[in-house]
Structure formats: structure tokens, C-alpha cells
């Protein structure tokens, strides 16, 4: 996503809009982004601090809120590493080799993005719920999947599966296989080649993929909502806790927990902007 084309150095070409039209378009764009993006973001913080920082802190330090934070961190700590391993393996298989069925494989990797979050949860309810063969059998062996941590992790893994692979594949495709082949020719093993040649080349794309994957894992609502069972203090993740508080008209607490998730989003955006800036700097340095 090269969002920053090179700034025009030449005097304004004879093809631009008149200054008045230009100012009008900028104003409309700003108003639209303010009404739909900026004001909602600001309102989260305004509502959370409506009764001062003490009330905000009390809402966050409440035991059920802390349990929700702990569960969200646990789920992300399991789901994100799994998808990093998958993303690296998938990107390696797809970009370093030519084989039949590759396009289909890439479509399959992207598939979770096209499925409604609620359906991502529904499929696990049907697979492990009452009426399936698998769920009761697992429960008989002491493993509760639905309405427990394993189900929440599975649903989260499903919705965040494409993020890492999707960031890596275009970049590794563009980089080709020449550097790996050189390393192998010079006597490096496969693992050393991956670790010392491929990984440094893709580290920023990998980092960005991990950030996006983590943001979605911590913020997923629909899929997790369907498989969680909403047991307060036990199977409520942060977004689910926000919903419960909101539905109880405890708006202050709902927005207080929501600010933590909004901060996560802001950190993700800031990191993204920094990575993109760095990438454009390097591209400029390489071009100069």
C-alpha cells in the first residue's frame, strides 16, 4: 500500500482543479472522515472519562474486567504464535516453489476474511456442540471445547489466520528466490538460509502482520461471542465484557474497557505508519 507518492516538485501542472474546488473537496473529505472515523474514536475516550479518572480506574480494576483482560491476553498468546508459524510456512510453500493448485491454496488462505464472523463461530458450534459426534465424545474425555478456552482460541485462530501469510506472500513473491539460492550454493543449510537470509528480508512485513493479527485476535467479537457462552469472569473476553456492561446500561465501565481496546488500535496504527514511513525512506535511499 504505497500511500505516499512522491511529492510533486514541478510547478503545479495545468491539469489540477481550481483552488476553490480543491479546498471544497478537502473540506468534504475532512468532514466525512471526522463524522465517521475521528468523532467515534474521540467519543470512546470522552464517555470513559465522563466522570473523571477515578471512576475510570475503578471500572477497569473491577474483578470481572481484570478476568476479561487476562482471558483476552491468554487467547492472543496462543492464537497469534500459531498463526505466525502457519503464516511463515504457507508463505514459504507458496512463494519459493511452483506447483499446481497454488492459486487455489492462496484463495483458501484468504477464505476466513470472506466469512462473516458469526459464521466463523457457528461452524465450531456445529462441529463441537450438542448433536455433533465430536463434542460429546471430547467432553467424555474431559475436554470441553465450546463455552471454554479451546473454543474461543479456535474461533480466534480462524478469523486471524490470513493476516501474517497475507503480509508475507506479496513481499516474498517480489523478492524471488535468488538470495536463498545463493546462500544454499554457498553451503548454508535450509534452516540457516531461512533464518539468516529470508527472515531479515521480511522482518518488517512479518512484524506488521503480527500486529494486525494480534489486534484482531484481541478485538474479535462476533466469532468469539458465538462460542464463548458469556460466562462472566470466566469466558468473557474484553470485547464481550464491553457488550455485557453496555447492555446493563453501565456505559461508563463499558467505555472504560473499550478505551483499552481503542489504545491497542491506536498503537497498531502508529506502528503501521512508522513501518510504512521507514519502508518509503528505504525505497528512496535505494532509488537515489
Amino acid at each position, binding site marked *: 500500500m504505497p500511500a505516499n507518492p512522491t511529492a510533486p516538485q514541478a510547478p503545479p501542472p495545468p*491539469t489540477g482543479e481550481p483552488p476553490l474546488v480543491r479546498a471544497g473537496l478537502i473540506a468534504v473529505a475532512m468532514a466525512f472522515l471526522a463524522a465517521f472515523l475521528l468523532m467515534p474514536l474521540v467519543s470512546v475516550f470522552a464517555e470513559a472519562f465522563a466522570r473523571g479518572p477515578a471512576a475510570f480506574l475503578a471500572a477497569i480494576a473491577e474483578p470481572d474486567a481484570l478476568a476479561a483482560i487476562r482471558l483476552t491476553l491468554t487467547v492472543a498468546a496462543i492464537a497469534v504464535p500459531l498463526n505466525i508459524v502457519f503464516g511463515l510456512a*504457507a508463505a*514459504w510453500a507458496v512463494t519459493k*516453489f511452483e506447483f499446481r493448485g497454488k492459486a487455489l491454496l492462496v484463495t483458501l488462505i484468504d477464505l476466513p476474511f470472506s466469512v462473516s464472523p*458469526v*459464521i466463523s463461530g*457457528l461452524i465450531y458450534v456445529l462441529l463441537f456442540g450438542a448433536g455433533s459426534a465430536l463434542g460429546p465424545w471430547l467432553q467424555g474425555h474431559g475436554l470441553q471445547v465450546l463455552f471454554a478456552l479451546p473454543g474461543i482460541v479456535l474461533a480466534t485462530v480462524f478469523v486471524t489466520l490470513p493476516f501474517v501469510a497475507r503480509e508475507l506472500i506479496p513481499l516474498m513473491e517480489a523478492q524471488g528466490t*535468488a538470495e536463498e539460492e545463493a546462500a544454499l550454493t554457498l553451503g548454508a543449510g535450509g534452516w540457516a538460509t531461512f533464518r539468516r537470509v529470508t527472515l531479515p528480508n521480511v522482518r518488517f512485513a512479518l512484524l506488521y502482520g503480527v500486529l494486525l493479527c494480534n489486534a484482531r485476535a484481541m478485538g474479535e467479537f462476533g466469532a468469539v461471542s458465538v462460542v464463548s457462552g458469556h460466562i462472566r469472569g470466566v469466558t468473557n473476553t474484553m470485547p464481550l465484557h464491553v457488550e455485557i456492561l453496555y447492555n446493563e446500561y453501565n456505559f461508563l465501565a463499558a467505555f472504560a474497557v473499550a478505551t483499552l481496546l481503542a489504545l491497542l488500535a491506536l498503537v497498531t*496504527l502508529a506502528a503501521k505508519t512508522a513501518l510504512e514511513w521507514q519502508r518509503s525512506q528505504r525505497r528512496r535511499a535505494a532509488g537515489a
Partner: protein
Amino acid sequence: MTAPRTVTAAASPGPGPGPGPARRGWRAPSVIPGFGPTLGITLGYLGLVVLIPLAALVWRSTELGAAAFWDLARDPRTLAALRTSFGAALIAAGVNAVFGALVAWVLVRYRFAGRRLLDAVVDLPFALPTAVAGIALAALYGPQGWLGKPLAALGIQVAYAPAGIVVALVFVGLPFVVRTLQPVIAEIDREWEEAAASLGARRAQTVRRVIAPSLLPAWATGFALALARGVGEYGSVIFIAGNLPHVSEIAPLLIVIKLEEFNYPAATAVGVMMLSISFALLLVINLLQAWNRRRLTDAR
């Protein structure tokens, strides 16, 4: 970039992985190790996490039998929910097609204070959890909200009405249109615009006859991506929609309600219908993206 390639070509025995390798069987030979394990992990993981669970949904729906499925599918409440989801997503994608294009144009072509901030903010819907977006929009557009109050004074109710669904879907869909159009706008060759201008075209004509056609594939792709996202959206909508059956109840919410009633057959039927819509849209998006790529390579 070129030097290592010649080294390998000399060193690799037999048909090297140069341009246009001779295919033997289903994959081209390669000196790079790790094909088996990485493809194995990829397929095994996809199978366990994605394919088997999706197959469970399809399997359960076939268990219902055609007659029962047809009855569930024709349920008026189900049809109303599907119509609401699809209709609101269509309107929101339309709003985003217009304003998203304007935002993309302004961000690429103009230099003004705050441009970088606005550019970064466009990604907010990708990063902000949908539940947070939902309660924020409900507060903002609610009867007491910063925007809801003045709108209510004008007699416009947004929150807890179908209009609220559209607002939520505009939020989640916007970055798809902007981020699809931005690189394409940046690629437009200004010489074409200059040529049109020097041949006597007025600016409006240039925009309509030169710029708009070159943006069309990306525009359609962004529209379809926003639409696909909107049809399945749940978290940001349910807080602002009002969720009245037959009026402002979206299809994903109906699935959740059916699951809470332990009415698995009904949830399965709605789920299969939504999945079919999603796959149809995915197919359309893939075709549009192929068109988009063709246009980009032709232009070069």
C-alpha cells in the same frame, strides 16, 4: 539482484529454476528445501481450522433435507434479515464508493495540513475492534450524542433505526474503497491529463472521460470488498441497529438468536445462505481484481 542468479544457474545441476522451468509432474523442480514440511503444515492447518469446520456446516445443512431447508429459508423473518443485511451493505458500499473515492483523491493529489493524520486514520476500522466501534457510533449518533442530537432536531433518527446499520457499515467498509483506489490514483500518468487539457478538454471532461475510466476496475473492486464486508458484519451493527425483527434485524444477529434458542437447524440454514452470498461475492471480487491487474499491466 542479478549476480546471484547467474551463480546459481551455473551451480545447480540439471534443469535449474531459471525462467520457465520444465514442469515434471505437479510441481517445478527447485533447489530450495522445505517444500514437503511447509506445504504439509499449510494444508494440515487449513484442513483442521478452516475446511473441516466449514464442511461441518455444509454437512449439517444436507442433513436437514431439501424440504426442511426450503421451509427454513422461506421464513419471512429470515428473508427480512437477509434483505436488511444486503440492502444496508449495498447502500453503505455506495456511500463509500462516492466519499471513499473523494477521500482517496484528496489524500493522493493534494498537500494540506493534517493529510498524514487523515491518511493514517483511514485504517482505523481495520484496527478498532467492532464492538468498540459499535458502542462509539451508538453514543455518537444516539439521541443524546454529539451528532445524534442535532440530527434529531432536524427530524432524522439514525441510531436504533435502519439508518444506523448503514452508518456502522460505512465505518467498517470505508478503508476497503480508499486503500484500493489510492495506489491506482497514484499510478495515473499525469501526461494523459495534460494531453487532454492541451487538446482542449475542460477539467470536468478530463475527469469524466480520462480519469474515471482508468479508475473503474479498482473502484468496482473496492465497492465489492466493502459490500462483502458489510453483508457479514455483526459487532459494529448490533449496538446501533435497534434489532427489531423484520425492520432492523441483520442476518448474522438472527443466527446468534437461533443459536441462543438452540435452534441449530434454523441457524444452519441462515448460515448456509449467508455463506453462499459470501462465496458468490468472493468470486466476483476475484474477477474484478483480475480485471484491475490487467488494466494496471496494460497501462505500463
